[in-house]
């Protein structure tokens, strides 16, 4: 697993420069609650060398809005919608209520304070 640390402003450009549909496979977006911060990880892997898993990692504050990569990787909308509900974070152009009932407030995967 190759971690590529980047920042919230740059991550979208990084992914745009990196992602080639016929070379890389988009796996999933994950987020981990680190307490103060939340780490968001975009996982890709290479079709040719599959052991090579690339993760773009960004640490954000819980109330920051994360850019959506839907225009780069079309199929990322499911992962984004899920993260919004489960982590209670904001992602550009993504509404709540896909995974959980729309009235479910707190993100269950966040650490309880």
């Amino acid at each position, binding site marked *: 697993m190759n971690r590529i640390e980047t920042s919230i402003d740059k991550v979208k450009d990084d992914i745009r420069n990196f992602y080639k549909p016929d070379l890389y496979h988009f796996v999933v977006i994950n987020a981990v609650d680190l307490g103060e911060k939340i780490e968001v990880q975009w996982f890709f892997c290479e079709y040719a060398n599959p052991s090579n898993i690339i993760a773009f990692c960004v640490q954000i504050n819980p109330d920051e809005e994360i850019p959506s990569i839907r225009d780069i990787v079309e199929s990322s909308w499911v992962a984004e919608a899920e993260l919004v509900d489960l982590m209670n974070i904001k992602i550009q152009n993504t509404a709540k209520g896909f995974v*959980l*009932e729309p009235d*479910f407030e707190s993100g*269950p995967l966040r650490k309880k304070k």
Partner: protein
Amino acid sequence: MKLNSFRKKSPWILHYNAGSCNGCDIEILACLAPKYDIERFGIINTGNPKQSDVLLVTGPVTKRSRERLVEIYAQMPEPKVVVSCGACACTGGVFRGMYNCEGGIDQYIPVDVYVCGCGSRPEQIIDGVIEALAILEKKTKDLEQSIRLKKEPVKEDTQLNRRDIAAEIKEIA
């Protein structure tokens, strides 16, 4: 086995997956398959609540399934029995206490037979359904009797039932 006495009934089943892991669902499917062939007992998987007698539910009832489950249950005409299939439908099983599920379907609709196991073997499901057949027969009788004796029967089947029985009583009186 007094199965022959139940044979005069024809339970049609409706299967609803209220958020299970599919394990028990495929076993229900296996029951329909040639090896177990529950059509021997006149069972048809109708897929239509309005023509079903037995509701086979799997899964611990997730929040989103809840309303659908109740809706489907309400659309089934009495007499009906509910069989919960598998540990998670009976009690929530391993999912007990997870935030989005409710721990057993009997929190929402009355369950008559609990089939244990995770996943329950087809044999267990058949046993459960046969058990349900007996209950179904009893419920049918209760219903008839209640109409004849003009009194309220089967306590446990909640308001839904009571209302229509009241209507029938009125008709006779």
